[in-house]
């Protein structure tokens, strides 16, 4: 059995899930910090 398709699938799932987690964490952090800053300026 050729194992390379399994290896590629495992690395692809790992890469996509890790990048997805980091992108989501980054976006939510930026949005929350921007909102907090804008409320500070409005006061």
């Amino acid at each position, binding site marked *: 059995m050729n*194992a390379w398709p399994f*290896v590629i699938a495992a690395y692809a*799932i790992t890469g996509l899930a890790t990048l997805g987690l*980091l992108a989501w*964490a980054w976006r*939510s952090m930026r949005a*929350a910090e921007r*909102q907090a800053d804008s409320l500070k300026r409005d006061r």
Partner: protein
Amino acid sequence: MHGYANPARFLRFARPATGWFLAVGLLLLVAGAIGGLFVTPPDYLQGESVRILYVHVPAAWLGMAGWAGIAVASLMQLVWRHPLSAVAGRALAPAGATFAAICLATGSIWGRPAWGTWWEWDGRLTSMLILFFLYLGYIALAAAERERGGDGRMAALFGLVGAINLPIIHYSVLWWRTLHQGQSISVTGGSSIAPELLWPLPLTLIGFSFLFGAAVLMRMRAELARAKAEARLRRATAE
């Protein structure tokens, strides 16, 4: 550690650390993945499928480490009432759940060529699946508590009780000798894997750990910023 329970002091560390964690993590991960995919030889028994080891083992380690972190944060919240401990617990959960899911997915993919099956109700696989469901339960409970303005004590209790599953996962390969292989890598030495195959593993392990840390820091920063924004809104409406 107690010093960093102060949010302002924590943010002074977290803001510069986030970028460093991301950069160091990505660098180590790319180096480890290149080594694991293209430099190491295939295993004499498993052939090329052994390369899944370099992503599967770090994912398993981080899935378990995430819950250990939740248990420590829960203890700190219940005993010392540290203001950051509930935030840390909530930030650890999505990262831990992601890596538990990666561990299950890559293990299943590895199982097909190695064992001839995608899934077996083996002790290690089942206890890891339970860990993933515990993460989902913790995330839902913590979110519901936060929405109702609770102090997160129920989630903290759940985090502590759920830690019972960690030794079960660890010793499952000794207690129930079914399909999953026994312990082959030890931090204190005595690994049964050849050094020619093993050397990229510390690179991916530390690389993923830094990325995990970066995700947790970003989630904690988001939670603190959201709390700050809510406090400012409350103050503005009161004025």
